Each structure stands twice: as C-alpha cells, then as structure tokens.
C-alpha cells in the first residue's frame, strides 16, 4: 500500500450514474447476492473487492444484464441507470449492453483483424456513416485504449497475435468504441504481467475522464491505486462502501479491516 498518490485527487461532480436498491441474485437455490444497495458515481473509478465467491463478479454482471445469458440466474430488486430501471420490460438488454460496456478477466479478442475487432461494435450499432468515419472511430478508440502507437502499422494483423497486455488493451479499446457511458471491468489484470498491469491501470485512470468505471479486483493494491470509491463484498453481502482512502485507512466494519490486513480471504 505504498502508492496512494492517485486517490488523493479530488473526486468532483458527485452525480450518481447507477443506483442499486435491495438487489438479490439467486443461482438456482444459491442466494448469491443478498440485499445490496450501492450508488455508483459518474466519472469515478469504483472498485469491488472481496474474497473469491463473495458475489462481486455476479453483481458486476447484473449491471449490464450479462446474467440474462445464464438460465438459472434470477435477479430481484431495482438497478437504475440514470434513474431508469434496467430490468424494466421495455429495456432491450442488447441496447443496454452497448451503453454499459464490459471488459473480461481473460483478454478475449475475436479471431479477426485488430481493425475488425474495434469496428465490431460500431458496425453492429451503425455508428459510422461511411468508411472514413469508421476509420476515425477505430483510431480514436485505439488511442483511448493506449495501444494505437503499437498497432497502427498492422491494423489488419489478427488481434489474437498480440501479447496478453496488448490484447487486454485492445479489448478495452473495443469496449470504448461503442461510446458506452459505463465501463465494467471484471478482474481485467488478473491474466497480465506487472508491466502490462501498470499500463492497463494507467489507462483506467485516463478513462475516468469520460466514463464511470467499475472494476472488480483481487488485488487490494490495485483497488487502492486506481479507484476513488471501494465496495467490500463478503458472502454475498455488501459490507462496506466508501471512499477508497477511508476503506483502506480507517474501515468501519471489522470484516473489512480483517480482509484488507490479510486475515480473511
């Protein structure tokens, strides 16, 4: 916990992007998420920490309805994006996922060229009117993904040929290309080496200017480095949610303290 500089920045504009009220998730007979209430702020990095199996990834996947693809999963309670219930019947989950992008644990570039990987989202949502606009979107997204300089000369090489860190930044750029409002990241650095992790963390901090970022991580140092707000999950409960500085220096709940000092988890 030596690198606490980034969290010292002031968190301005405290508008709530996502608010979850009394969320319950069941997998078959398992009660995975119990009564979670959380307010996720815009233009802020929020990290979810907690031991394995505590429900943090499950909760993250509720935020863009990725759990819909799992048959036995039931979600109850309200999750509001800009004040609108995302589980309302009128909401199209496909449209929602374009607004709430997601980056996964393992880099998962499609077996296509780098260009086609980025252009995938804009193409299916019809974001570009012509080839020139699409080229522009691809370049802008790759720049935002902090990978443009490394790949600009080989845009038509396969995305699967990049290194692990580059692949993950490509996936972030791909998620950014559809102009989402929220970016969900499920342990985006767990398959990366320390150098690639540092690059991705730097990128996350830059992304905060445009999006609300929610990141699930197993590394408490990472949570401390990149996030302004931290939520601690334990056994399906949201134990504590506060400013990252507060959680890591002066937690209120004894379980949080036990976890961040390494006694549970």
């Amino acid at each position, binding site marked *: 916990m030596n690198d606490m500089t980034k969290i010292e920045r002031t968190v301005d504009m405290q508008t709530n992007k996502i608010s979850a009220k009394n969320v319950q998730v069941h997998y078959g007979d398992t009660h995975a998420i119990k009564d979670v209430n959380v307010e996720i702020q815009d233009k802020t990095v929020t990290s979810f920490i907690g031991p394995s199996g505590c429900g943090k990834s499950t909760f993250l996947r509720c935020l863009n309805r990725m759990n819909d693809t799992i048959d036995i999963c039931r979600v109850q309670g309200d999750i509001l994006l800009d004040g609108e219930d995302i589980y309302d019947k009128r909401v199209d989950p*496909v449209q929602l996922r*374009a607004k709430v992008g997601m980056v*996964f644990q*393992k880099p998962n570039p499609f*077996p*296509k060229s780098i260009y086609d990987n980025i252009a*995938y989202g804009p193409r299916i*949502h019809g974001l570009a009117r012509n080839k020139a606009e699409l080229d522009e979107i691809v370049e802008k997204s790759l720049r935002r993904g902090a990978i443009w300089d490394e790949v600009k000369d080989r845009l038509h090489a396969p995305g*699967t040929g990049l290194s692990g860190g580059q692949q993950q930044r490509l996936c972030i750029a*791909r998620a950014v290309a559809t102009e989402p409002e929220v970016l969900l990241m499920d342990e985006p650095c767990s398959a990366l080496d320390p150098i690639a992790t540092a690059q991705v963390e730097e990128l996350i901090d830059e992304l905060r200017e445009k999006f609300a970022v929610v990141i699930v991580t197993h590394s408490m140092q990472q949570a401390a480095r990149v996030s302004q707000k931290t939520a601690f999950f334990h056994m399906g409960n949201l134990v504590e949610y506060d400013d990252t500085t507060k959680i890591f220096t002066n937690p209120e709940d004894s379980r949080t303290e036990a976890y961040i000092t390494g006694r549970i988890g």
Partner: protein
Amino acid sequence: MSASFLLLTILTLAALGFVIGRGRALRSVQGDRRRLHSLPNYYGFNVSMLAFVPAVLVLVLWVVIQPLMVNGAVSAMIPAGSYDDAGGLNLIMSDVGRVANGLDAAIAQGALEHAALKTLSTSNTDIRALLGTVGVALGSDVSEDVLSAALKFREKTLTGNWIMTVVVLVIAGAGFLAAFFKTHADLRARNLVERGVQMVLIGAASIAILTTLGIVLSLIFNTVSFFGMFPMGDFLFGLTWSPEGRGGSEHLGILPLLWGTIYISIVALAVAVPVGLFAAVYLSEYAGAKTRAVAKPLLEVLAGIPTIVYGLFALTIVGPMLVDVFGAEGLNWMQGARSVMTAGLVMGIMLIPFVSSLSDDIINAVPQAMRDGSYGLGATQSETVRQVVLPAALPGIVGAILLAASRAIGETMIVVMGAGAAARLSMNPFEAMTTVTAKIVSQLTGDADFASPEALVAFALGMTLFILTLGLNVLALLIVRKYREQYE
C-alpha cells in the same frame, strides 16, 4: 496333430508355464515376495509369454503358407494339356482337394483300408462311387491324373502337418525352458513383460497398416494391368460408358460416371450443409439443456440407419413424390422415379447428422469468452453467431463438410436404388444417372471374365474414387488440425 489341437496344447503349456514360473520365482526367495524384483505374477507371465507367442506366430504362418506350397507342388503334376487357362487349372485343383479330403474321410470311416491307398487306381476302383458312400459327391469321374495328384496332395499335407507339429512344439518347449531357467529373484520380469506387451501392440497396429497397404497395392497392380489392356486416355477422357458383355469394349470412359458422382454429391451437400449447419447452430447456441439432451441423440439416430433403408426410402417414397410434382402429370421434367434429385435428396438427409454433429462439437469448442465479448458489446444472439462464432468455427466446419463430401462420393446403395444405372452426361437433375461406386458393383457382379478389361476397369474406378476421397480427407484433416491450434 491338427492346428487347433496344437493351439490347445500350446495354451495348456502357457498356462502351466504361468503356474510353474511363478512358483519357481517364489521358491528362489524362499517365499518372501518382497525380495523379488517384480511381482510374482510377472515371472509367470514371462514364462507363458515365451512359451506361447513365438510358437503361435510360427503356427499361424505355417497354416497360411503350407497349402500354398503344397498347391504349387501338386499343380505342377497336372499335365499342361488338360486345361486352357488359369481358371481351368483352378477347377482341377479344387477337384484334387475334394478327392484328397474324400480319401481321408473314407479311411476314417473304414470304407478304405490304409494299405489299399498304395495300389489305388482308377482302373481297379470306381473312386467316384467310393467317395459317394462316405458323403463326398463329385461332379464327374476321377481321372488318373487327378487321383495321383490327390494322393500326392494328401501325402504332402500329412508330412507338412507332422513337421509343423514337431517344429511348433519344439519352439514352445524351448521358449518355456529358456524362460523357466532364467527365472530367479533378480530377473527383471516386469520389464520383459512390458516389452512383450509393447510388441503385441505394435503387431496389432502393423496389421491394420499392412492391410491398408495391401488393399492399395492390389488396387494399383490391377489398375496397371487394366491400363495394359485399355488405353489410359480413353478411360480418363472418354465421354461414353458402354461396356460390352465379354471383352472388346471400346467405350469405358469414366467422365459420365464421375459427373454422376459429383452431381449427386453436390445435390446431397446442398441439402445436408444448410440443414445440418442450422441445426447445429440451434442446438449449440439457442436450445436449452433439456431440448439439446433430447434433440441431439434423435438427430444422431439418422446416422445409424443402414444406407439400404435410405435406398428403400428413395425408391418407394421420395422418387414417386418427385414424379408427382416434376413428372408427366406436373412439370414434365422427369421421366421416372430414379433420378439425380431422388438420390441426392435422400443422401443429403443421410448426411445431415454428420454435418450437424461435427459442427455442433466444433461450435461448442469456441470459447464462451468469445460470446461474452460479443454480448458485452451489445450484439444480439444471431449477430454473435454470424460474426463471431461461425467465423471462429469456420475451419472446423469446412473440415466437417469435406468429411461429409467424401462420404457422399463413396455412397453406393442409395445411388443404386435412387439414381438408376444409366451412365449419362446431362445437366438435368431429374434424369437418371449413375456413379462410380454403383458401376463398380455392376462390373464385378456380372458374369464377365475376371481378367477382361470389363472387370478390371472396376479397379481403375476404385483407384479414382480412392484418390478422390483420400484427397478430400487429407484436406479436411489439414484444415481441422490448423483450427485446433488456434485455441490451445
């Protein structure tokens, strides 16, 4: 001693060897099995193995080779004037064999004295009547040549059998004793048995490979001898297929048959590929676990139906149904129930499970992370399937389709029953045509002389088919292998 009795003897020896070898190993350490290098059973197996395997190999080889040698020696005794060709000699030799067996039976049943064999002759005995009394019926009277050949045959076979018995027993005994005397606590019996097991496995693998090699060689030799009688150019580029009954055919062009084969296969694939692929996409991407558990085995039942049943289906249901629509009553494109369309449609149905089952496995092998990535970007299910899953699975799917294609090319029964027997070069899919496989059957099941070009052409056709399907299979394997490397 007969071969089967000999085999039983060796087996007994091997079983005995197991018990004795195991006992000797245990005795050598005064019953303390911990001091043995290997478990006691390994010493037993080692003795049985050495007693059994070499002796059985010699026995098998002997049983195969002896009749060939005896036949060769005896057929030299038949005067060259009494037959015109190889077929005639074969007929005489089979008579010789029957007479020899008949004499054995006669001696066994007491109708003939053993001593009387030496003086036996067609002039003093009616051999045909004599053998008739012991239940061996002959088609004609036995000539003096045949009788003396039969006596020689009998004598040589008997001597051969005696030598075989002695040789095999000596080998079995030698193996037994060698292994028995080597058995003591320090013998690495476990390693020896392991080596033996390896040999047996190598042997099994070689039999499979050698058989394949044998089949290919017989194809090649017969093809070469066919091209010795018939010009290669006329076969490969001839536009007419009309074999005459017995020799002297001028038109044995493969092109009409090849065209029929390819045309029917194309129709079959045009049915099987879309239906099979869509079924696979539904099963792997859309269907719930319960539907899948029921639907997939049901679809695979199609693969278990014998092709002759598909043939019946083509002949009795699909053909008449097509005639109703496209025949004289309807559009008047079709003359009879047998046509390229009939066979192609039914063959397509047969191929659906091949395409769907293989494609389903391949689509399932596409990592879930790919789908998640696509859904996470706001793609719908069909966009994900079309743009991510299918492109990722494409090489494997192409492989599956090529395997189905080589199956279609090699199919016979459906063609015989559904497509007719007329070799024809035509674009109309409602006309009867035929394929390479169907013609191989008709060329070899007729009464044509086996050495004539009309029969040998079957080998040239088989060779063409073999090269065609081999090429497709190799291509499919290459593509599938390339695909495998992608996610591992």
